[in-house]
């Protein structure tokens, strides 16, 4: 016997909240992306705990699908950061307001 489901969900909610605060409070694109990764990881943790509580494997399958989603998101976000930085921008989120202008 291990922990109750409510404690797993509480840990997932706390990690999700920390990721959300990080994504909202930081200015750097890089740290906003890490905050979103935290939120996705917290969702995966909740899925795994629920899968154990209801004794089926759908939760674990969802964790793997979320992981693929997070990989695509991180790769594309970092490529956007490199592209914007090459065009003379910064890594601040405030400076990304020139969508479509060819630099």
């Amino acid at each position, binding site marked *: 016997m291990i922990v109750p489901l409510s404690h797993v969900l509480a840990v997932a909610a706390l990690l999700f909240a920390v990721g959300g605060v990080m994504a909202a409070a930081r200015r750097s694109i890089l740290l906003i992306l890490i905050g979103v990764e935290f939120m996705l990881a917290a969702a995966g*943790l909740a899925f795994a705990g629920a899968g154990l509580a209801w004794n089926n494997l759908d939760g674990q399958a969802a964790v793997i699908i979320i992981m693929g989603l997070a990989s695509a998101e991180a790769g594309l976000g970092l490529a956007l950061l490199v592209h914007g930085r090459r065009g003379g921008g910064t890594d601040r989120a405030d400076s990304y307001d020139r969508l479509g202008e060819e630099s």
Partner: protein
Amino acid sequence: MTPLGALFYLFAALGLGAAVLTATRRNPVHAVCCAVAVFLSVGAMLAVLGAPLPSVLTVVVYAGAIMVLFLFVIMLLGLPAGDGTLPPGRFLVPATLAAATLVALFALIGADPTAKTLLPAAMAGPAAVGTILFDKYWLAVEAVSILLFAALAAVMLLGRGKTGRKIAAGGRAA
């Protein structure tokens, strides 16, 4: 408390502490190193919850591949490295909103009477997870593969610089 439960609480405390450190570091390299600790803790918690395949994948994909990619981009771009922590005033509004959300979430979690019972210790092997993934969720797997391919194409389009664009244009002209 059983040893598995103690391990879960230990890694939960470690992961949440490292997450708070990640959110407050000014130096991006320090933040990414703390994020690696968070993902290692999440992988350990998944292992305790009886999910060895997602646990190993979390360590390999998140803590290994994605975080190394973040470090690589920091070094590639030479991002400015501040030191110390951020001013706490910047976290005021998001932290207030998050606290309100957490109060609501904890009320919801606490209202469920079945959530108090201890979870049984169980383990699902990789073969069983793979079978259900490719049997019941094959459409989602295909959707994720298309998503990854689209991301790859977009990254290649964004990543080539001016010289790459010129070479491509010259190739078309010739």
